[in-house]
C-alpha cells in the first residue's frame, strides 16, 4: 500500500491500463463463480432442516463473513468516513438488503410449489428487470449504438433462456412438489421483480461514489434484520427460531461457508454494477447457475443417471448462457452512452450536494483517497478474530455429513474459484485500489 502524504490531483491517478469495462466484465464473471460456489456448501446439508433455517444460516454467515477478509481491504475508518460523506445512501443500502431478504424467501415458496425447473428461470428474469430500471432511472444504454442494444438485450435474454434450458434439464433429477403451481409461479416471478429492483439501490450508490464495501456493510444489516423477522414469523415466534437454530447447530457451519462465498461473490457483483452498470453487470453475474451446476454434476454426482437428452440439454443451455455472457462482454458503452451515465451522476451530485469532481473520480475508479495510508484501528483485529472465531467454533462442532463427493473435481473447482478471486482482486487493486 503506498504511503502518499498529500492528496493526488483527481484526474492524474490512472493506475493501470485495463479499461473499466473489461474490469467490470471480469468482476461480473468472478461474481458468478463465487455466487455459484455459495450453493455448494448448502448441498452438504442433508435432510431434516427447514429451508428458512438454511437461508437464515447463510445470511448469518454472510453477516459474519463481511467482518473477516473484507475488513482487511479497507478498514472500518474508511467505511465510516465513506458513510459520513454520503449518509443518505444508508437508506438505500438497508432497502437493498430488505429486498433481497423478501425475494429470497419468495424463492423458497417458488421452489416448494413448482420446483426449481420452473422457479429458477422465473426469478432469473431479475436481470431483465434490472436492465429495465437501469435504462429508465439511470440512463444506461441511452445514446448507445443499435448493435450495443442488441448485444446487451440479446445477451441478457440468452442468459435467461439458457437458465430455463438448464433448469428443465436438471429438473429430471430435482422434481419439485406438485400442485399449488400458481402460487409458486407468482412467488418466483415476485422474487424476480424484487431482485431486479434491488439493483436500483446498487446503481444509486455507485453513481454517487460510494464504495462497495461500505454498501455491503449496511446491506448485511438490512438483510439479517429482515430475514430474522421473516423466519421468526414463519416459524411462529422468536423461541421456535432460537430452538431451530440450536437444533441446526451441527450443520450450521456449511451455510455459513456458503454465506462467506456469497459475500465475496456479492462484492464482485457490486464492483460490476459500479463499473459496467446493472444492465450489463447483473446478467453476467447471473451465469452463476453454470457454477452451481458444475458443483452439482462434477462434485456431488447429481446427474449420473441423466439421459443423453438431458446431457444435451445441459450442453445447449450452458452454451446459450456462455454466448449471452460473451455478447454482453463485447458491448462496451460508446462515448455517447457515457454522456448519459455522467448525466445520471450529475443528477445525484446536484440533488444531494456532493462534490462532482470527487464523485466523478471515484466513479471512474480513481478515488483520490485510495492511495492514502489507511489508519487501522485496534478493534478491527478484535472484530476479525471474533468473526473468524465464530467460523472455527462452528467448524469444530460440525457433524460429518455422509455425502459422497468427487475429491479430484472438488480440488479442481476450488482452484477454479480461488483463481478468479486472485486475478480479479489483483486487477481491482491495481486499477482502483478497491474504490
Amino acid at each position, binding site marked *: 500500500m503506498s504511503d502518499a502524504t498529500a492528496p493526488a490531483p483527481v484526474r492524474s491517478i490512472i493506475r493501470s491500463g485495463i479499461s473499466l469495462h473489461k474490469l467490470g466484465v471480469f468482476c461480473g464473471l468472478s461474481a458468478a463463480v463465487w455466487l455459484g460456489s455459495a450453493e455448494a456448501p448448502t448441498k452438504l446439508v442433508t435432510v431434516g432442516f427447514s429451508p428458512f433455517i438454511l437461508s437464515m444460516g447463510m445470511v448469518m454467515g454472510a453477516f459474519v463473513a463481511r467482518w473477516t477478509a473484507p475488513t482487511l481491504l479497507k478498514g472500518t475508518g474508511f467505511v465510516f468516513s465513506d458513510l459520513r460523506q454520503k*449518509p*443518505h445512501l444508508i*437508506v*438505500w443500502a438497508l*432497502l*437493498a438488503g*430488505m*429486498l433481497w431478504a*423478501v*425475494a429470497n*424467501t*419468495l424463492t423458497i*415458496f417458488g421452489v416448494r410449489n413448482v420446483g426449481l425447473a420452473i422457479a429458477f428461470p422465473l426469478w432469473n428474469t431479475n436481470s431483465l428487470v434490472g436492465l429495465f*430500471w437501469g435504462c429508465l*432511472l439511470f440512463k444506461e444504454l441511452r445514446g448507445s449504438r443499435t448493435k450495443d442494444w442488441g448485444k446487451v438485450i440479446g445477451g441478457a435474454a440468452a442468459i435467461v433462456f439458457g437458465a430455463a434450458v438448464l433448469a428443465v434439464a436438471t429438473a429430471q433429477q430435482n422434481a419439485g412438489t406438485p400442485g399449488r403451481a400458481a*402460487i409458486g409461479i*407468482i*412467488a418466483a416471478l*415476485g422474487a424476480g*421483480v*424484487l431482485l431486479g*429492483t*434491488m439493483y*436500483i*439501490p446498487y446503481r*444509486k450508490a455507485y453513481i454517487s461514489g460510494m464504495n462497495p464495501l461500505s454498501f455491503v456493510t449496511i446491506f448485511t444489516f438490512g438483510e439479517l434484520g429482515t430475514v430474522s423477522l*421473516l423466519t421468526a*414469523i*414463519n416459524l411462529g415466534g422468536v423461541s421456535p427460531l432460537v430452538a431451530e437454530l440450536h437444533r441446526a447447530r451441527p450443520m450450521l457451519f456449511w451455510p455459513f461457508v456458503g454465506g462467506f462465498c456469497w459475500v465475496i461473490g456479492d462484492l464482485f457483483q457490486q464492483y460490476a454494477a459500479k463499473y459496467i452498470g446493472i444492465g450489463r453487470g447483473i446478467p453476467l453475474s447471473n451465469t452463476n447457475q453454470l457454477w452451481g451446476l458444475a458443483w452439482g454434476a462434477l462434485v456431488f454426482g447429481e446427474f449420473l443417471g441423466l439421459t443423453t437428452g438431458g446431457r444435451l440439454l445441459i450442453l445447449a443451455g450452458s452454451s446459450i448462457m456462455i454466448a449471452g455472457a460473451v455478447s454482453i462482454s463485447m458491448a462496451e458503452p460508446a462515448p455517447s452512452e457515457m454522456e448519459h451515465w455522467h448525466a445520471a451522476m450529475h443528477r445525484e451530485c446536484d*440533488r*444531494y*450536494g456532493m462534490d462532482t469532481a470527487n464523485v466523478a473520480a471515484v466513479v471512474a475508479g480513481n478515488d483520490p483517497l485510495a492511495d492514502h495510508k489507511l489508519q487501522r484501528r485496534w478493534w478491527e483485529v478484535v472484530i476479525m478474530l471474533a468473526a473468524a472465531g465464530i467460523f472455527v467454533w462452528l467448524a469444530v462442532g460440525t457433524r460429518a455429513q455422509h455425502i459422497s463427493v468427487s475429491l479430484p473435481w472438488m480440488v479442481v473447482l476450488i482452484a477454479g474459484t480461488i483463481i478468479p478471486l486472485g486475478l480479479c482482486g489483483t486487477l481491482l487493486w491495481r486499477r482502483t485500489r478497491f474504490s
Partner: protein
Amino acid sequence: MKRSSLYCILTDVHLWVPVVVLVLGITLLMMLR
C-alpha cells in the same frame, strides 16, 4: 433555498420505486403463507 437531505430523499423516485416493490413483495409473502 437549499433543501434538506430528508426532503431530497423523500421526494426521490429512486426511493419510492424500491419501497413500493418491497411493500408489494411483503404483501405477497404474507398472502402466500
